[in-house]
């Protein structure tokens, strides 16, 4: 299995939180902060207007926003974040058509060893070009990505773009050889999760989460399909792909796992249409310390849910 289980290693993403619109501003809805209690307390008191702070910026721009430096930026919780050792963040807005459902924010700690990548790709002149990205210590891979483009159907960004479906790729080091593999291999990148990010601004975006061997972005990935075209009108979802460092493959062509609305964490996402961040209850998160589930609304329906656990 290409998902490396290394319980000693710290993960690439340290904090995940969900902000939802209420009375014209984004308010704190959920968060998994681990032992960063002070930052959690500051966050719980915060709210963001349109265009304000990182979540408000993602809302206003209608696309994911990557923030690599807090100092001197529009980030509102800079001091608390610095004290918590957090140095960069990515905000992912969840739109259903033109309606903002929520903003998922993930925060990372920068150091010289932590490797992984969160990339935002945008269609430009018929090609997927890197719009922004956070790579931790994978500086060479960052440079390669900045100088790479993907036509339709090629590579993880091009594949997600043309299939309009989340895709989970294994073994990026050997399988990505046609374009970024050497660098991906050197960076220790193993598993890549790519997902379409619907945007009200009329552009096409693909977000990729690339996990590395030493500092995995997650140890378990799942892709759930809840399109009526797949599961009918009765709702629910089927697991169309998934791998786990502990359980191996999660997919089953003949008897796929299913989820029902409001049953379990994935069912909560299906029922609410909102992202879900959970921590501190391994019984609910496949035995892992935390999970993040992100819904994808396409063509007026809750089409997919991607989840990662670490």
């Amino acid at each position, binding site marked *: 299995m290409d998902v490396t289980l290394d319980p000693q290693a710290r993960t690439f993403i340290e904090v995940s939180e969900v902000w939802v619109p209420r009375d014209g501003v984004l308010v704190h809805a959920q968060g998994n902060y681990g032992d960063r209690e002070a930052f959690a307390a500051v966050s719980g008191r915060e709210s963001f207007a349109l265009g304000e702070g990182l979540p408000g910026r993602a809302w206003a721009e209608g696309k994911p926003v990557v923030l690599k430096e807090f100092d001197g930026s529009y980030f509102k919780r800079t001091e608390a974040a610095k004290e918590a050792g957090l140095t960069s963040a990515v905000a992912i807005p969840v739109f259903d058509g033109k309606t903002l459902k929520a903003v998922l924010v993930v925060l990372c700690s920068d150091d010289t060893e932590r490797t992984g990548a969160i990339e935002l790709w945008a269609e430009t002149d018929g090609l997927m070009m890197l719009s922004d990205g956070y790579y931790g210590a994978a500086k060479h891979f960052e440079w390669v990505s900045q100088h790479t483009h993907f036509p339709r159907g090629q590579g993880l960004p*091009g594949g997600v773009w043309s*299939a309009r479906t989340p*895709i989970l790729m294994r073994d990026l080091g050997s399988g990505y050889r046609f374009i970024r593999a050497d660098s991906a291999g050197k960076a220790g990148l193993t598993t890549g999760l790519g997902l379409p990010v619907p945007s009200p601004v009329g552009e096409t975006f693909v977000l990729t989460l690339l996990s590395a061997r030493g500092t995995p972005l997650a140890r378990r990935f799942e892709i759930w399909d809840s399109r009526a075209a797949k599961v*009918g009108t*009765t709702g629910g979802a089927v697991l169309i792909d998934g791998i786990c460092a502990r359980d191996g493959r999660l997919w089953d062509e003949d008897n796929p796992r299913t989820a029902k609305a409001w049953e379990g964490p994935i069912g909560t996402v299906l029922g609410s249409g909102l992202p879900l961040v959970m921590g501190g209850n391994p019984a609910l998160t496949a035995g892992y310390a935390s999970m993040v589930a992100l819904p994808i609304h396409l*063509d007026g329906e809750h089409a997919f849910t991607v989840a990662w656990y670490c």
Partner: protein
Amino acid sequence: MQKLVVIGAGMASGRALEHLFDTQPGEWDVTLFNAEPRGNYNRIMLSPVLSGEKSYAEIVTHDEDWYAAQGVHCRFGEKVVAIDRAAKTVTGENGTVAYDKLLIATGSNPFIIPLPGHQLPGVVAYRDLEDTNVMIEASAIPGAHAVVIGGGLLGLEAAAGLRLRGMEVTVLHIATHLMERQLDAAAGFLLQKDLERRGINCILQANTKQITGDGKVEAVELADGTVLPASLVVMAVGIRPNVQLAKEAGLAVGKAIHVDDQMVTSDADILAVGECVEHQGAIFGLVAPLYDQAKVVAATLRGEEATFVQKQLSTKLKVTGCDLFSAGDFAEGPNREDIVFRDPARGVYKRLVIEGEKLVGAVFYGDTADSNWFFGQIRDGADISANRDTLIFGPAFQGGAPVDPMAAVAALPPEAEICGCNGVCKGAIVDAIKGGAVDLGAVRATTKASASCGTCTGLVEQVLASTLGGAFERNAPQPMCKCTDLTHEDVRRLIKSQELKSMPAVWQAGAWKTPDGCHSCRPALNFYLLADWPLEYTDDLQSRFINERKHANIQKDGTFSVMPRMWGGITTPDELRAIADAADKFKVPTVKVTGGQRIDLLGVKGEDLPAIWADLNAAGMVSGHAYSKGLRTVKTCVGTDHCRFGTQDSTGLGIALEKALWGSWTPHKVKLAVSGCPRNCAEATCKDVGVICVDSGYQIGVAGAAGMDVKETERLADVKTEEEVLDYTMAFIQLYRENAKYLDRPYKWVAKVGLDWVKEQVLDAGIRAQLVERFQISQSVYQKDPWAEHVKERAEQYVPVADLTKFAAE
């Protein structure tokens, strides 16, 4: 403990062993040979391994631990060289082992087309992990090209995988649509579009000539001369059961190893399973029946009764984001009915095939919800009469969403052009409606949409309906046929605005309710497509009326009439002799001079058509198209050469017009005449286009009639030169070709759009030049003598055919 030897560690034998160990643990001493250096893995999941969406580790079914736990003696990477049935032994490359029971599961070998160059390095089949790894290696070169020969299930999965790996991929498929065994043309079309959106190039009806390269693959050459660069060629054209060992052992072998219902071969101690077996004349390539066979094998080995029964099969394509399902039999048949659902906005096509009270086939594209339920209905032969009307909506139907006739228009993007005349897009109309223009008149006044030729009226009304919902009332337009709610004009507009260039594209975008149209819409669509896209669209012979297919007029006794063209009504003694000779030779019972100034040979037998055409061609004559929706005749009077009253060379002009216009397909037949003076001996004033020569030049009249209706032509223009007559006539004919409803004669069309609008187009020098240019482009494709072409290429078509069901009815 009984000794079981198994040859082949594939999915079928693996499943048989699972059943055996589950029910009789510890009772069998198993030796398992496998030519591949590994045990059982899920071969059908190699495609996602190729694409990088799965790892090999994930598709391993039985690992070392499993074999060890079951006590299986694994002899992997060792080929079996012989079976000695008398001694009951199997000999591998590394030694002999005895058996009480032997299970042959040698599977199949990929079929390699013996093309020149097929042995070059870089030509691979797609069968096992080694092939997959070769492909992954080949994809590591940036910008590398792959050609996949075979547009079936496996070939397309290979193509999608290679594309995701970064290759430039072309699929060559010999049939007219992809996966023709599992999909109908409509679903095949959607699949092709889907693959093309992924950057995969699909070439249909591709005839591969050779694979070329110096020491390794460099290109694939097609019969039409196309050369495709390739550093990898994947052959995915089918499989052949691997029966060599069984044959050498003297077992009964036909297409594959013969087995009975208990999976026992002609030797009672030897069983066979999987792709290497033939059961009741059938061989197997999908996994479901193999697993059924495996169950029976295990039961037979246990000494229990079990019977293998062949069942209906279903197919899914493992390409991420392609939702496709096919099951049962979906061929057309006399007692079969189709239920079709299309949603153009979502790219959904669903077709159920019903025979009597049973569902016998299903093809779904873009929406595979409930496919297992539908498959169950087919497999079980369930009586569906009680829920026939709602069947297409699946098991959860509760009142269900009805087919939305507005779907096609609702699916158009805001920038889609609705009114071609005034360049008004859907977004502008929607804005006007939202601004208060809530009926057709107001939309016309605000946007000018539908204010000119009016052919987009139906579409504008549909935009009104889809924008206003129940608040809009309109006069229901007459749909084209029972297949669609769209009018002819709507369809013509859709074809242009959506750049639809094939019939499946129109069926999908127009939410056709039938899988492939009917005898009414197919000829119309065929004309619309060839008129709008002469270079891209290929004329579909099967969508033509019988006269146009046979290039002769069928008569009431089943014989045909043959009429060569006589340019402008002028003939020669040689032509007359050739006609007389042909009449004698083929015993033509009636020779008739027609009102169109030519000679008709009536009573020709269908099978004599190619020969009589050949004779007439040899005398320099071409088809008079007396049967076609196209130019018929240009009638002339003798003009200034002979007539005292003639003002111009009417005969010469008539010949020039006929030579410019012949061969062009039009919505209905077109007849012309040129009279040399206003006395009008050629009766030009009741033709579709009639030219009256006068001292000052030429009066061009259009939209006359002398059939069911009689109507005088209306003056289009007065011009001074023959060149102008030709230009104005070609422009008028092209305008008619581009805008009229199929089977509307020009006079009916002009009545609908108004002569003023026609004049605005034809009299504008810029527009006229464009119309003439487009007409000439079309003529570059279609101005060909069909007789000569058919004598050369399709003479066999004129022998009587048995199956006429695929052709449009007269």
